[in-house]
């Protein structure tokens, strides 16, 4: 499965989301490909992704996309990431 971490420029905070998600997936025992995207190209890249991780405001801006969108409030809270990813993975 392919997961997309989205932030404004696809640099700092997106990479942080990716690293946190990698840790969380290891805890959950799931393997996935993770990529970082900027908000500008995220809609196009979403077509081939299975899950998107981003912040609340950027999720609004992303609008409706095919994959399920997981929004993270606290970027360094691993528990939040694990909890939300687990819920999202169970539904898909």
């Amino acid at each position, binding site marked *: 499965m392919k997961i997309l971490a989205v932030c*404004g420029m*696809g640099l*700092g905070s997106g*990479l942080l989301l990716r690293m946190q998600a990698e840790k969380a997936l290891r805890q959950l025992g799931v393997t996935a490909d993770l990529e970082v995207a900027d908000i500008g190209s995220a809609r196009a890249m979403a077509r081939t992704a299975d899950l998107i991780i981003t912040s609340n405001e950027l999720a609004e801006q992303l609008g409706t996309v095919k994959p399920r969108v997981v929004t993270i409030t606290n970027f360094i809270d691993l528990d939040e990431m694990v909890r939300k990813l687990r819920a999202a993975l169970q539904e898909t």
Partner: protein
Amino acid sequence: MDILTAIVDFLVDEIFSKPFYLVGLMTAIGLIALRKPLSAIVGGTLKATMGFLILVVGAVTVINALDPLGKLILGATGAKGVVPLNEAIVALAQSQYGAVTAYLMFLGFLVSLVIARFTNLRYVFLTGHHIFYMATMLAVILVTVKLTDAYAVVVGAILLGTIMVIMPAFAQPWMRKVTGGEALAMGHFGSLGYIAAGVTGQVVARTAGKGKSTEEIEFPEGLRFLREPMVGTAVAMFVIYLVFAVWYLARVGEVAAVEGVGLAEGTTWASYLMAQVLNALNFGVGVAVILLGVRTIIGEIVPAFAGIAERVVPNALPALDCPVSFPYAPNAVLIGFLASVVGGLASLAVLSIFEPALGLALILPGMVPHFFTGGTAGVFGNATGGRWGAVLGGIVNGVLITFLPAFLLIVLGNLGFLNTTFGDADFGWYGIVIGNVASSLQTSGQIVVSVAVLIVAAILIAFASWFQRRYVETGWSPGGEAMPEPAPEAAS
């Protein structure tokens, strides 16, 4: 023996002085240190190397688009025009300073871990692209004052390690106010602007009382598109190119304007204007390509760095990219951004009035620095001073990121002649301080220069360490009544 020298020569010439292989090599070292599987090491190394080459491709596109803009602004106003954009200047610097930058960045990260390990400044700066940009700026400044490459790498690495731990410490009291005490720090080289915005908010709260938060405002949906920095950049560049193209045309007439930007003789004014539209779009394209390159490089390097940091400095606070503060006050981001642009335009007006006397370049508003640092300044200003704190904090940031680059250009040597430069506030103040200390002693030789800038670094670390003990460890909250007003800007 001849074979041995031949091999060494080959390695030095073909690998160790080529920044793209160097970046790959350093990524490989990081991944090996983390005992990653071979496939991850090979993949990560290749991606980092290719990311660097992508960056160079983008740099060519950006310079081709920027060159006519420089001519337009010079032709229209008689002054040099500069649009600050870190991504552009960093990419342009790599052909000349790439190898020094790569070594400096790698060593600088290790120095930051050592400082974090052995002082009370326990911050790990994880914003990879800013480490890369700061490494580039330091390489440019130190090589410009005639330090040899080896000196530039070692001295630059200590300077880089210093700024990576002191700025998160200085910003921490306000960052804590923003996040409500979460265990994270600000790791972004716009921090002087955020601290200034936070202090501005305190002044607002003290004189007029802390008003309502920005988050109690209903925001018009139509402004949402501004949250996409690439779109903002394209729109702004479009306006800047056309304004100066029309201005130049009106000033010198069709024939001279066409010749001035290097178009074929007989080109009509309409084609001339459309050529500038294309330049504006190509600028955006170049920046997008550079971003892809930077993303590819840091996407491999930062996780390796983070893994090493976790082992070397356990329990350190992660210092993170500025958008991590955005969720705490999303409206303040937009208000701060717009206010920062206003502050930038007002400062541009001041620069253009005093341009003949000061000989400074005209710093036009670069939308990427205004969005990210203005937005964060808005969040900080709001945290201490409510909505007016966000507005005034954004304006103060806009003033800073217009005047600081104007003075920074002077110490950047041949890179100071380009039409773009570093945007964010800490590049400005740190570059100006280090650059001026270094260039004033340049004639005394590289050892004197090195000792002098390292003394500056030592003073900054001592000051930051005191600040950490006095304000961060005591839990001081800006805007609280008990403690006196600090003066963190004294660092600049």
